[in-house]
């Protein structure tokens, strides 16, 4: 076993990978995290078009979208869409070493995203009873989490330059509220890498972790 500081979190950008492959990778990392073989991780990915349904989700919230991949999955929350231009983050974090509180974890993740949006001059907000991050009443980031023995998987999806028309195929999270993207809010593309770096930085700040980037040489 490698010695490491609790306060360290490794992050990497896996680029565009299939939802199923990311799921497999998360499962493997969660098991390794439980065995304490690895420390906390933050994975960034971009998925090809996919619609995923949480355990609480209602399949009826899928309104169409023929030809888009569909997964029923074990995260919390209802239905959501992932696709190009969306920054998806999967923290694999042991909450036993943090606060042992899933609600605080959700709020902290919102805090991370609000902080990152703030770096671009956007005022992210919470809405009571509706987990996620909102800007001027429109949802810019969705959150859904799975916990197994206090180790987290799944995470958040922040619309950077997402083509929002794809959300028409679903009732996102069962809510009939508008969705938006940073690109739409800013009137231009803020840059994937700049947003990703901001989120990693804010993650370190909120969770009090020292973030170190790992170059991905080959994907599993």
């Amino acid at each position, binding site marked *: 076993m490698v010695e490491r500081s609790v306060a360290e979190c490794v992050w990497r950008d896996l680029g565009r990978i299939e939802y199923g492959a990311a799921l497999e990778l998360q499962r493997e990392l969660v098991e390794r995290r439980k065995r304490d073989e690895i420390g906390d991780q933050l994975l960034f990915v971009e998925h090809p078009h996919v619609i995923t349904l949480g355990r*609480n989700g*209602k399949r009826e919230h899928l309104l169409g979208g023929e030809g888009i991949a569909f997964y029923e999955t074990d995260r919390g929350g209802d239905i959501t869409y992932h696709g190009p231009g969306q920054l998806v983050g999967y923290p694999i974090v042991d909450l036993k070493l943090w606060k*042992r509180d*899933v609600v605080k974890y*959700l*709020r902290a993740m919102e805090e991370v995203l609000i902080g990152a949006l703030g770096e671009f001059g956007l005022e992210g907000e919470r809405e*009571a009873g509706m987990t996620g991050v909102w800007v001027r009443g429109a949802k810019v980031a969705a959150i859904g989490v799975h916990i*197994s023995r206090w180790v987290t998987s799944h995470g958040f999806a922040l619309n950077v330059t997402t083509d929002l028309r794809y959300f028409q195929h679903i009732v996102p999270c069962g809510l009939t509220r508008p969705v938006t993207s940073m690109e739409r809010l800013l009137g231009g593309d803020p840059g994937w890498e700049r947003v990703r770096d901001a989120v990693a930085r804010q993650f370190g700040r909120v969770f009090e972790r020292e973030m170190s980037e790992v170059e991905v040489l080959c994907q599993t």
Partner: protein
Amino acid sequence: MSDVIMPQMGESIVEGTVTKWFKKVGDRIEKDEPLFEISTDKVDTEVPSPAAGTLTEILVPEGTTVQVNAVVARIGEAGAAVAPSALQPKAPPAPAPVAPAPAAPPAPVVEAAEEEAVEGIRSSPLVRRLAKEHNIDLRSVKGTGQGGRISKRDIEAHLAVKEEAPAAAMAPLPPTVAFPPTPGALFGRYTVEKLSVMRQRIGEHMVLTKRVSPHVSTVHQVDATQIARLRERVKAEFERQNGVKLTFLPFFLRAACAALKAFPVVNASLDGTNVIYHQDINVGIAVALDGGLIVPVIKGADEKNFLGLQRAVNDLADRARNKQLKPDEVQGGTFSISNYGSFGSLWATPAINQPQVAILGLGAIHKAPVVIDDAIAIRSLAYVTLSFDHRIIDGATGDRFVSHLRQGIEDWREEIL
């Protein structure tokens, strides 16, 4: 025999929903092996078994919400006899349903621990009592007295800051159980049909609105004789000129917009303890559909003229019935109107459409004898109802709003051709 309990996954969590059992009664289970999965807000959690043995009883079926620390299952020694009751088909056990008491107090254990921690802080009994009343952790209060002693003024200052901080309003409401299991309804001869998704959404919304907003309703009689005559006189020409039928709704929309401008608190929302006064007047119109209803929104209703309102109403209602509304056309409403009079209702008490704070109900326009100057006359009457959120709108304000609207109808001046 070990009890399996609903774990507490966070300080503010008072209940959880069992979403999946990984084992069935009679199965062997190892300690720490995933036994069931629970769901709270956006988090699904696998719960490991607290003991090794045989799962002898499942007390909480999938999809049921119970309080934290409720017993959800029992595990016996390996090979233990399965509780006979669990195998026999019977009414589902009542797992302490949560619906009536959503704001359950925190576990007493936590309180005791906090009480002790407060001991080291210098404060008077009065201050401690104030802190308790306002749910303030004294450790978070800056004492300005001698030796960091916390005074009453410090508590007040802390409260003022706390109220300003938007985070204070952020405590999410515990989830609502809109559709609790009702085993008592399963008797005699019956058939079972699953609720449609639309009905489930409506149901959840209605439970939310009745829970969040203490509703009251006020009903006024409006003399619609003048607009009824006007409509009779011009409706043929109106339809010929504009290609749309002339209905009563735009009259009431016009009058409602004027009243909303005069009483901004009716065109508002509550966000925690902040009143959000909407600058736009976006009026939702309840449209009945087969098996449900939808409330498309006329955006900027106050900026449209009479014909524009009539067109918007017809267009939204048509597209609602043909399921052609775009998502943003059912969002952003700041006030709603329900025209149940078109189904013959004289008066009703409509439910507020969250997050709005009021809804106007229009009863059927009907002819009735009315006493005017000690003579009996036949007039066209309508009973209009305002249901409003009594947290921010007082009865007097509600009545003044409806009076304003009534005057707008009774003293109608606008040309509509």
